[in-house]
């Protein structure tokens, strides 16, 4: 009882400490702004922004420095959705999932509603992520350690089976073909087992595999821009008349999150747990949650044509994972993502020693960081909701003015992501395929899923086979995942045979 009381003291003491220190709050405001700007620019990841900010935190107070960097990193994903929704230009692999339904909404003139929903979902995800962080502290160790390469493999396979639902009705074979094509391209690069360069010719830049952001922009952004230029007019095709992006429309979007609160809570928790387990990566979180939203929807055929759940699910997941990935970073000293790896370097500079001792020696700092995640997300969503009204007007700008500008933005993003000009050629090649898919109404999401999850599946399968041989899947958690995969496939076949009006068992959103 006394210990509990003490814990609550520390918990809220940290919040009061954070909110009443004007200097820390000022730094947080600056961090939110930088994080949002970096996040809105395609190609520049959060990792780079932390690396560049490190010189500025030299000499900062431990808590302030950590709060500054963490806030900057945490709100990064919040602004990436703006270009995904408005122009169909995702900022990175996670945002690509938001594009699938966000951009069709913008085309219907509902950019305001989509942005309202996605911004709120991001903030909601970030806050739930912080709560999951707090709740998981005592059980962190068993949960994280129960995910081995065998489970990674099965999670990736589970994500791949969602393709069956993403493809839309009657398109399951097209979906599988596109998904397999994505998986094939995921094998480009150095074979992790044999050291042989696959499909790379003499080009060293292909050794690390196909650049995900290049592929994503090629498949989504470029075809949309070609279509827009060919059609003329503006992104929002509402018959030439400018729909006033009112606060009412925005607010309607905000309200979509409480309307779909159960989905938002589920995808936030899934996102946070995926973030907690190092090795799966953020894109996997967004895509798994998007697939989950489609699979559990009563009307899956709306997805891809502007379903608001398709915006909420990936956005909650990608912000929730930040809280999750902070856990192993702080308590094991093992970073949960590449961004967190850079963050850990910065923590050392500030004099924070990540490890199990954090729990006993620095618990007030831990709580301050949890609160920083919550407060930082709240600042970010209020700011974005405030400016969105004007930003959304861009979807009514004439294509002739908009398209060249966005194409430049896409190319700068592709180049700056890895600093290799050769990726611009890859962009053109894959864009041709993406345009073909779009023109003949083939699904494009399975391509990205195959590309992102194919790599994880291959690497983990090799590891699991090397460690345990062919019987690797007999671990208890593996069996649960196999059950889920089997159920997903069975349900996909069932609903395809039975027609599309079947209600998923026990589903609701």
């Amino acid at each position: 009882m006394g210990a509990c009381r003490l814990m609550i003291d520390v918990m809220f003491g940290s919040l009061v400490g954070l909110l009443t220190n004007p200097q820390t709050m000022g730094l947080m405001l600056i961090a939110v702004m930088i994080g949002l700007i970096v996040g809105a620019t395609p190609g520049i990841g959060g990792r780079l922004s932390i690396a560049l900010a490190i010189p500025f935190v030299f000499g900062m107070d431990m808590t302030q420095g950590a709060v500054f960097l963490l806030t900057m990193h945490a709100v990064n994903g919040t602004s990436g959705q703006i270009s995904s929704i408005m122009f169909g230009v995702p900022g990175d692999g996670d945002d690509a999932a938001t594009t699938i339904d966000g951009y069709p909404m913008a085309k219907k003139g509902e950019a305001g509603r989509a942005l309202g929903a996605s911004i709120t979902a991001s903030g909601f995800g970030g806050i739930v992520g912080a709560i999951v962080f707090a709740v998981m502290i005592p059980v962190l160790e068993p949960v994280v350690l129960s995910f081995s390469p065998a489970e990674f493999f099965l999670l990736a396979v589970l994500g791949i089976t969602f393709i069956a639902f993403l493809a839309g009705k009657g398109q399951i074979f097209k979906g599988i073909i596109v998904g397999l094509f994505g998986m094939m391209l995921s094998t480009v690069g150095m074979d992790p087992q044999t050291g042989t360069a696959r499909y790379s010719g003499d080009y060293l830049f292909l050794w690390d595999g196909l650049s995900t952001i290049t592929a994503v922009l090629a498949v989504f952004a470029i075809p949309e821009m070609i279509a827009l230029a060919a059609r003329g007019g503006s992104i929002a095709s509402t018959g030439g008349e400018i729909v006033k992006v009112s606060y009412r429309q925005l607010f309607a979007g905000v309200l979509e999150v409480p309307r779909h609160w159960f989905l938002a809570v589920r995808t936030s928790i899934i996102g946070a747990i995926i973030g907690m387990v190092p090795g799966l990566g953020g894109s996997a979180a967004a895509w798994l949650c998007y697939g989950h939203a489609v699979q559990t929807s009563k009307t899956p055929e709306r997805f891809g044509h502007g379903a608001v759940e398709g915006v909420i699910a990936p956005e909650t997941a990608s912000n929730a994972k930040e809280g999750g990935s902070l856990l192993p970073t702080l308590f094991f000293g093992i970073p949960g993502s590449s961004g967190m790896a850079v963050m850990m370097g910065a923590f050392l500079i500030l004099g924070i020693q990540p490890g199990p001792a954090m729990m006993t020696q620095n618990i007030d700092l831990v709580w301050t960081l949890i609160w920083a995640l919550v407060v930082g997300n709240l600042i970010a969503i209020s700011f974005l909701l405030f400016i969105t009204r004007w930003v959304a007007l861009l979807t009514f700008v004439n294509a002739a003015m908009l398209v060249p500008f966005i194409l430049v933005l896409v190319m700068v993003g592709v180049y700056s992501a890895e600093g290799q000009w050769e990726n611009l050629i890859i962009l053109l090649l894959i864009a041709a395929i993406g345009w073909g898919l779009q023109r003949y109404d083939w699904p494009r999401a399975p391509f990205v899923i195959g590309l992102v999850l194919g790599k994880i599946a291959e690497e983990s399968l090799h590891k699991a086979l090397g460690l345990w041989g062919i019987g690797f899947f007999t671990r208890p958690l593996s069996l649960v995942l196999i059950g889920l995969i089997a159920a997903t496939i069975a349900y996909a076949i069932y609903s395809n045979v039975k027609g599309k009006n079947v209600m998923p068992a026990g589903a609701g959103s």
Partner: protein
Amino acid sequence: MAKTVVKGVLAAAAAMLAGTGANAQADASFFNGKTVTYIVATAPGGGYDTYGRLVAEYMQKYLPGSTFVVRNMPGAGHLIGTNALYASKPDGLTLGTFNTGLVYTQLAKHEGVRFDLTKMSWIGKAATDPRAVVVASQSPIKSWSEVTTSKEPLNFATSGPGGANFVEVLAMTSILKLPIRMLSGYNGTDDQLAMRRGEIVGTIGSRSSFDQFVANGYGRFLGQFGGSEKDIPQMADLVKGNPEAERLVRLITAQGDIARLTAAPPGVPAAQLGALRAAYRAAMEDRELQARAIKLEKPVEPLYGEDVARAIEQALNQSPEVVQLLVEGFSKGRGR
């Protein structure tokens, strides 16, 4: 022309004697108003980037009027950035840093290598980061001798063919006939997590990246390749009596001794190279830089110009047996 060469040699000599920023400035006028590109052959964040940015910032301080721009060129295990550095114009305006593990890559005559490390214009190295053998604390293995005599095969994590620890574990295993089973695909901190899960017994890695892991009680060091620390047995002592193994340990030791390199392409004019080396030395002796490096837990242990060139040359001078092992380390598994 001859005059500038003499001037450069003098500058280099003066810098070596005095080793202060004041002398460097006298011949650093070439760099006034120029932009120097510092290539980091890996992505932002992490050790190479941190050291690279630190070196660039302080070299700029000691080359008045110059502007250093750090450019990250990641890819293909530092090969892309290093190839670009090697092929850049040798005017003293392009420098860079890359993984010392490329010594292995060059020795193995790997297809991606488009450089010759012995020909580079060496500026200096900033740190000593010895390699070490580490095992999970939950494994029954307590010492190196228990590794060599284990009846059960021991799972060791490696990044994959061509990676430094893959080459090292493979070479040690085959020379000492160790009961080690190698598993690939463990990148970044995957190996630490796998040791915590218990699926992996140990690995070889740089000591600095496992210090925290060991301090947290998750692992223990069994042996270290070189370095000044005295708390861990030296691998050179542990393999004494096996000349081939001793040679291999010396090669792996060189890895750690010459860490965090700075180099320019071959053929940089002596005047510019002298000024760069002097500025590098002044940067390394800067108290502010030292204080910052210590805060990063990455203390500065510098070596300059010719000394680095000699160390690289020594490391590249290996017996055909070792070279053969390295070639295998880069191609193992092909056609399997």
